[in-house]
């Protein structure tokens, strides 16, 4: 599996992603410039990552402008053709704005940016990111966002629940869903979801920030391993 990491002018987790995919996981990875539309040699067996950051400054609404960029038109076509797309933090916001994932990410309940380690529980194994993990397993992964409160109308949420599209929920260290363990007021504690076809995944926590022994936490690496092990998804 090869990777393309989209670089918007205000992306700031692009280098982190390239480091983890390339240096840590040993994958072939290249950057995709926001003004381009060419995806090069990426096929639908490959994965495009939308990294964290502030795409175009995000002064309007996180990801609101990025969806109109040239590269996003190619990403949308790539996703519709079945290619893997993984949005993290700002990437998740952009996927929602672009309509590749349902719902939206609202400003955190506390109206503040929050950066800290949180716990998320694996809710469904039916996605490339979670296929090799255990349901109910709690991972410690940091968040860093001001707009991470997942919201959608009831029908959409119900459908996500029924289809098992909710991949991660905020929980405590023991995997319990408690009011205190929801860091931003997300509906149903949602931390990450996938689309109905399960090839597009968005999540607010940053697994690339905890994928190396030296950083004292390797929980994030499990998601990368799962993704690499799941070259063809069987649902």
């Amino acid at each position, binding site marked *: 599996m090869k990777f393309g990491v989209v670089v918007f002018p205000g992306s700031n987790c692009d280098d982190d992603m390239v480091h983890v995919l390339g240096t840590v996981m040993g994958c072939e990875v290249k950057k995709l410039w926001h003004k381009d539309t060419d995806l090069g040699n990426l096929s639908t067996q490959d994965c495009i990552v939308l990294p964290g950051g502030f795409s175009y400054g995000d002064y309007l609404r996180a990801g609101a402008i990025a969806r109109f960029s040239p590269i996003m038109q190619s990403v949308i076509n790539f996703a519709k053709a079945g290619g893997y797309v993984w949005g993290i933090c700002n990437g998740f916001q952009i996927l929602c704005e672009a309509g590749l994932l349902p719902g939206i990410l609202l400003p955190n309940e506390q109206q*503040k940016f929050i950066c800290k380690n949180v716990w998320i529980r694996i809710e469904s194994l039916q996605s490339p990111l979670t296929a090799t993990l255990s349901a109910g397993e709690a991972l410690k992964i940091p968040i860093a966002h001001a707009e991470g409160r997942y919201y959608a109308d009831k029908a959409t949420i119900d459908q996500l629940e029924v289809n098992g599209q909710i991949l991660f929920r905020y929980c405590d260290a023991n995997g319990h869903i408690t009011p205190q363990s929801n860091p931003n007021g997300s509906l149903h504690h949602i931390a990450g979801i996938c689309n109905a076809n399960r090839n597009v995944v968005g999540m607010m926590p940053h697994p690339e920030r905890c994928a190396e022994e030296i950083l004292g936490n390797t929980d994030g690496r499990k998601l990368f391993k799962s993704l690499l092990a799941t070259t063809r998804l069987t649902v």
Partner: protein
Amino acid sequence: MSQVQTEVSVDIALKLGLTEEEFEMVKCKLGRMPNFTELSIFSVMWSEHCSYKNSIFWLKTLPREGKHLLVSAGEENAGLVDIGQGLACAFKIESHNHPSAIEPYQGAATGVGGIHRDIFTMGARPIAALNSLRFGDPQRPHMRHLIKGVVKGIGDYGNCFGVPTVGGEVYFDPCYNQNILVNAMSVGIVEVGKTVPARADGPGNPVFIVGARTGRDGIHGATFASADLTEDSAKDLPSVQVGDPFQEKLLLEASLEAIGTGAIVGMQDMGAAGITCSTSEMSAKSGTGMRIYLDKVPTREPDMKPFEILLSESQERMLVVAQRGQEEALMRVFEKWDLECAEIGEVTDTGRLEYYMHGELVADVPAHELVLGGGAPVYQREYTKPEYFRKISKFNPHKIDVPTDFKEVAWKLFHSPNIVSKRWVYEQYDSMVRINTLTTNKPSDAAVVRIKGTDKALVMTTDCNSNYVFADPYKGTMIAVAEAARNIVCSGGKPLAVTNCLNFGNPYNPEVYWQFVFAIKGMGDACKQFQTPVTGGNVSFYNQTVGKDGVEPVHPTPTIGMVGLLEEIKWHMTLDFKKPNDSIFLLGNVTNDIACSEYLRLIHGVHFSPAPQFNLLEEYELQQLVNKLIRKGLIQSAHDVSEGGLFVSLMESAMIRSLGFDIETVEAFRKDAFLFGESQGRVVVSVNPEVEDTLLAFLSREHVSFVRLGEVTTGQLIVDGEDFGHVSAWKQVYEHHLNEVLN
């Protein structure tokens, strides 16, 4: 003359912040009467902020040489230290106090933006930020407004810019009620030999302005920063700049990419005094001049006057001198990043700055005469020993009763905003982006940031307890340096160099100047001992409030930003106790000292007492010892004793893993001094019982005294057999108290 200029007079000069004598000097240097634009140029360049006229004499006494230094202090925008493997570290700290006191959000945000620009203008990529904040009483609604604004400003700017905020400090004291302090530090990495100088070499080379457009914001900001804050200061709101971190992120990437093309001869960011400062400093450094066409500067609004363009402090701009013939390579990069890049003039060999507007020469001044080290005035101010020292010398610890209920005292201390966790603040900062922050999951006394592709990490901290400096400027500043070094050593690092941010009152007040002079002397002596030369920094005078009841300077606050090197990451030492039954030792001298402690102020209401016990040589020996213990693998944790004393230090080591401790105090000492005193040069370490004998054998051969305090427990806190409860209750207060105070 089509550009009509205001008539110049002494009154105008005074209004611009110059003195009568300085106005005479300007006339003398020019050999004629300056016009308004020229006078404006002199006034900002000779402002305290740009010229360091009241501080430079003393700053030059600081140790500025060292084997690791790649540039001398003051020579470039920031200090540059060799860290091996072909890499260098650029770092600097700077204040943004006055803007933040008036408009906390933008003031703090642009402080962060400005200091990062100082780093990447040299060609270094910023990899970490720290900040040192001083606020007044958080019970005051206006202060809470300032605190929230400053923290959000720092967060929003740094988070978007994409550089982690990895460390810093926050203190609260009523002396900052009207004049808060916001000091921001940036640390960057660059390959040795790939830095770009802030010079304008090569007459004929084109001069570009790149980045944001120039607007009317921040005009006379440098002058504003060089005057007392008064009740009328809010009227100076237009002097505060507005920041755009997205623009800065583009400017960062474009600047580093442009440097890679080889087209850049020199570059300087535009901060205080904007185009005026960058053109004059770059020219003066190279002995060249510049011809600048102000009408070619991209502006945000029409009809800007020449002096407005020259003095604008609009953010996110750089002045670039390019190699003639390579303009296109430069322009291509800035076009890629959708940034303005306009050729506005050229380097000349005249030594003069000639500014034109629509073909007309609007100002013609000699570059050399404007700058620090050139013609800018240098003053030695008078100083007298402050009157309040009498009150300090009257302090008698024997009149302070030793409390009977220590648990209650400790519990009260755990409700001091100065003691409790600052997580309300730091969780609003992205501390992990760039994935190098080792201290997220392995906390230590200083922030540890790995350098990818090497086995090394940078260790960094900011430190200053201004209560100590107020009590004794000389000793208090030595302590600030010693504590910074101690934090780095306790993290496994080796101190390398210092940047300083000197926040003081009005230099024309002889008592304030006394504080300044002795603080510099203390800093110099301590920096020599720790072999940490001062690479640069920033002086911020006029931090005081002029109100109806007179003038009140802030406590002298010479913030020390120190960078150290962790030569091998395996030597990274953390501060948390690791497991029950590990032994706890206190290294360093125990004394009967309660002076200047948070305990003395909070519990006994005593605000005048001498600085705590401190011995420079003993401190140095202690740090050498800690360094050896880490490298020999003899200890499990190391944490220094600072605010709140030994008890707070033990708690901080215990709470991280929700462990406790069972310790005995030493009877020969006052129990309050033992638990809450802040005498310096002490470090708490924990030891695996299996190597305790080895440790003891080792310590017996060293000259540092030590006490075995007790053991780590599963969570119970016991002092001299008295049950202080379970760690969880204390942790609850520690982590959430500040949140409660601020909301």
